[in-house]
Every structure is written in C-alpha cells, then in structure tokens.
C-alpha cells in the first residue's frame, strides 16, 4: 500500500516537472509566434497593401503580410523587392527594413515585402538548437528581431504529403517543400496556404506591372550558389504551354541575365557571382516569376554561415558575426564556395549591405539597358555601412529609426499578419 502511494507521488512529481518544462517551452513558442517588429516607414511611403488584397482568402491567416508601396508619381520603372522568403535568412528582412525606413524615390515606383513568409517567421528552429531572436545595437538600446524557420509553420499548414508536386510543372519535390515558399511558385489561388502566398507574390508582380523583381536570400558557403545573382537565360513560352502543355524555353526579348552579369562584373566591394537559372528546376522565384510574368527577375544570395551544417554552437553571436573556426578549417581545405576569413566573418551588416548594394546595382543596370524601366531611388549602400562600421558603430542599428521617438510616431508600422492599432 505504502509502495503504491510512493509510486503515485513519484509519478505526480514527474508529471509536474514535465508540465513545468512544457510551460517554459510554450512561453517561448508563444512569444515568437506573437512577436511584433516595429519599423518607421520613410516619408516616401504612399500606400500599404496586404497579400490578402491580391488573394482575399489569405485574410486573417498567418500568411497574410504587409506590402509597402513607394510611388514617386513620376512615370518610370516599377521595382519589387522580396524579403524573408526563407525567414532563417534574416539579412533579407533587415535589408528590406533598412530600405523601407530610408528610401527616397524620385522616379518610378518601389514595392517592398519585408516578411514574405510571415508564418515561417513565427516558428523557430529550436529543435536544431537555433536561437529564436537576434539583437541589433541601436542608439536607443537593443532591438530584437526574429530568426524563424525555412518553412511555413506547420501550425498553419499540415500535414505534408509523401511527395510534393509543384504546380503547374508537375515536378516532384521533397515533401517538406510544399511549405517552402521558394518552391511553390507560381502558386495557386485555391491551393495550400503557401501556394496562395506564392500566388499573391505573382499577382503583385502582374497587377502592379512590375518591371524588375528581386528576391533576397542567404545561402550556406558549402553550397555553390552563394554570393551570387541568379537570373534566367531563357523563359517559358507561356502561350505554347497553355495550348499544348509542353514546356518550351525561348530567349526572352529583354534579358535579366545580361543585367545580372553586368552587375556581378561591376561590383568590386565584395565577391558577387552570376548563375543562369536552369529551365528544369521548378518552383523557384528566379524561374517561375520570369515564366509567369513579364518582369525581369533576379535572386540574390549572401553568404550566411549560420545555416552551414558544420559550424560550432549556433548562437546569436554566430548569426550576427558569422565567425566560426570550423568553417575556416573547411575553407582552408578548399571545400567552400566563398573566400571565408573567420577574422572578418560574414557579419550581419556585411550581408545586409550586400543586399542593399546588390539590388541597387541591378536597378541601375536595368535602367541603362532599358531606359523606360528607369527607377531613381536611394537607400544606404554597402559603402555607407562600411564607413559606419569603421567608426566602431553597428551600422545596421545606425540606419534603423527609433519607433519610440516622438518625431517618428506617425510613421511607426507594426509588422504582423494583420493590421494592429497603430497601422
């Protein structure tokens, strides 16, 4: 009898400990899921739309997200910049935030999505011992930003199929890629929630008559397509496909690959390569955006060693500085695709600066090749950030604006999956 009582007490104690651990984890998950980042929009902001304006069924879902539009009112090119297609590549979101806060548009129109897969940004990779947030040092203290996952949060789309079949190419992809926004293009209006978000991106490009579309990513340095522009050499003959179902690729009248090649050759501040998008890999932005719209399309990859699989502990410091002795050893053996030096690392400012200058280089070359697509725009560039860093100041924080400052109160925007009070 006494033994039974003892066992019961032990069971209750174990259960209480398990519940306590679950409660701590639940608080962490809940905090990330509902974390709201605040930004201060530039005075050049003319309109905020949402994915649900393009695909209404996304309203009140975690795949809805704000779309910031800066229209100069002067006829010119329209540029679309996509941040956070993969939330665990956060330099793309930080670059988008710096653009949104500092942009000045003199000609044409700029459309920026800073959190394309909002759902994916609400799920961390705690199972892989990734931190959930990183901090940026600013004049007014530390600002915290989400790291997120590669995929749409399974709370929003589940279960995954045995094999994911991309629409309309019919290409088989890995099961989890059904929640990978950069494998679900061109999307479907009535598909999974990720496919609907992909379709919303396509609709932005088509409905807003986007001329230049740039997708911002980060990549491991053990992956060949790092530190690179990717653009299509050929595009799908859409009419032929819709008539016959056969995928035939033709030389486009206007070449985004030419623009990307010139940009890559002209950039001196950092290594930037250029790669042609294969006709046979489907679901990716640099392929499907070009195949299903008339925009010139580009993807940019910065080197993010945080997502290489052979680093030391994945800490917030590793995310922010990109300094790791194990990757240095691998680089010394010639096994990486980036001239990595751990003393410099691949810090956040460097990756953000690369996106800011990489996008500007594309916009400028596109204007030279096709003057009717000219867009005159400015934001801080790589060299501006380098100059600030040389003074010992965190340049990412330097170019962010204080959302609590009285002079900014009318321009504060809370980035969430639905409008909140101050938006």
């Amino acid at each position, binding site marked *: 009898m006494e033994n039974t009582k003892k066992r019961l007490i032990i069971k209750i104690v174990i259960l209480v400990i398990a519940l306590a651990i679950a409660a701590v984890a639940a608080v962490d998950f809940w905090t990330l899921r509902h974390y709201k980042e605040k930004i201060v929009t530039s005075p050049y902001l003319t309109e905020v739309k949402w994915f649900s304006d393009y695909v209404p069924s996304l309203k009140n879902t975690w795949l809805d997200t704000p779309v910031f539009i800066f229209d100069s009112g002067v006829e010119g090119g329209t540029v679309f910049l996509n941040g956070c297609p993969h939330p665990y590549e956060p330099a793309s979101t930080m670059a988008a935030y710096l653009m949104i806060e500092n942009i000045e548009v003199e000609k044409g129109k700029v459309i920026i999505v800073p959190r394309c897969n909002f759902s994916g940004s609400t799920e961390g990779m705690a199972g892989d011992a990734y931190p959930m947030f990183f901090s940026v040092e600013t004049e007014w203290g530390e600002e915290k930003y989400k790291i997120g996952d590669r995929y749409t949060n399974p709370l929003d789309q589940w279960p995954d199929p045995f094999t994911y079949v991309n629409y309309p190419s019919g290409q088989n992809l890995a099961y989890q890629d059904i929640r990978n926004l950069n494998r679900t293009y061109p999307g479907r209006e009535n598909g999974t929630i990720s496919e609907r978000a992909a379709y919303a991106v396509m609709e932005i490009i088509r409905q807003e008559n986007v001329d230049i579309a740039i997708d911002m990513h980060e990549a491991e340095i053990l992956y060949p397509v790092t*530190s690179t522009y*990717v653009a299509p*050499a050929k595009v799908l003959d859409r009419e032929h496909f819709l008539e016959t179902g056969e995928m035939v690729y033709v030389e486009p009248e206007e070449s985004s690959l*030419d623009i990307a*090649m010139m940009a890559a050759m002209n950039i001196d501040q950092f*290594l930037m390569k*250029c790669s042609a998008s*294969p006709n046979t890999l489907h679901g990716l932005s640099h392929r499907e955006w070009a195949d299903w719209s008339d925009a010139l399309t580009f993807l940019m990859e910065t080197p993010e060693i945080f997502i290489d699989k052979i680093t030391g502990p994945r800490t917030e410091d590793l995310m922010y500085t990109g300094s790791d002795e194990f990757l240095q050893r691998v680089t010394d053996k010639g096994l990486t695709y980036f001239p990595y030096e751990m003393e410099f690392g691949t810090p956040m400012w460097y990756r953000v600066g690369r996106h800011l200058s990489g996008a500007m280089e594309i916009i400028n070359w596109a204007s030279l090749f096709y003057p009717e697509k000219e867009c005159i725009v400015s934001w801080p560039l790589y060299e501006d950030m380098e100059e600030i860093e040389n003074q010992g100041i965190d340049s990412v924080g330097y170019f962010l604006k204080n959302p609590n400052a009285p002079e900014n109160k009318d321009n504060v925007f809370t980035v969430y999956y639905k409008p909140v009070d101050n938006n």
Partner: protein
Amino acid sequence: MKKSVIVVLLVALILVLAPSTLMAKISGDPLQTYETPFLLTSGGQGAGSKMLRLLINQTKKFTYGEDADFFLEDETPARYSYIDSGKYKALVVVMSVTEKGLGASGITIEDEIGFLKEVVKKAKAQNMPIIAVSMEKDARSKISTNGNERVIDTICPEADWIITITDNNTDGRFTDLGKKYGIPVTIVDKPLELVKVLPNIFVK
C-alpha cells in the same frame, strides 16, 4: 589661358587619342590577334560564355549571329556542327562550371569533359586557334578534382592563348600552364576591362 587649364586639356586630349588598350590594366604576354568570324563556347556550361558575349556586344564593334562576326553555341552536338562547318576562324572557350550543377543541364562533368575533348579535336582539325578564357569570378578551386580545375586541365594545354582575370590567377595556375606548354598568357585586371581590349584582338 591659365597653365592648369592647358594641362587639363592636354591630359584630356591624350586620353582621347590613346589606344583604348592602354587604359586597360593588362599584364603578362601581349595581346594576340585573330580573324573574324569566331565561335564562342562554354567549358563547363557556366554563365561565362554569355558574359563574354555580352561584353563583346558592349564594344559595339562586332555583329552577332551565325553568319556575322561571332556566334555563341554552348550545347552539344550543335557546337560540333558549327566547328565542322569551317566558317569560323577561331574558337573561344570560356572556362567555368555552372554553379547550379551540370545535372540541371542533364549531363555530368564527365560528359562535359568528353564533349570538350571532342570540341578541341574538331577545332584542331579545322586549324582553328583556341583561346582559353577564365573571366568568371571565383571560377577556381584548390581541389584538383573540382569541375573548374578539370576543365582548365582539358582546355589550356591545347590552347593557343590564355586570357585570365587577375583574381583567377593569384596562385599562378595559368602562368604555370603557359610556361609548361609554351602558351602566351595575358592577365586582365577585371572582367569589364575586356570591353576595352576585345576590339584589338579580333580583326575584321
């Protein structure tokens, strides 16, 4: 007229009159000259051959097309036919392996090496001089079995001239190949410098 103004005008005049090649940062062996039309192809299916086509077009000196001053063909067997046609006076091979992977083109690196050996054989049969170009950033590796290095080992020993950018020759790889096989090697500082030198290489 003030002295400083005269100096500025004189410098401007010299810059205008100077041959464009003097403006480009070139080292190693002097530029060689070849006749047009010439055929351009890729060694490794990378974007390099398309980059060079773009730069040649930027010179505004050459016409592009099958029956024009130059033509690009990366694919096999089409490039065999163009070489066999006998109408091209030189072959330019831009060495860089595609980063997206040759698998996306439906071939392996072994296939591409085999194709390139055949390309070289056919060009030799037509007495076409071969110009090996390494101009795509980072198209090098420390590992000898890397695709880029294997393409270099296939093309360079058979070439009549090697052109490389400075960054791709920091280990002296192309200079050493040039010495070993008695091939001139010209080093251009940056890929965009080629726009200035190309009109002096190909004679119409």
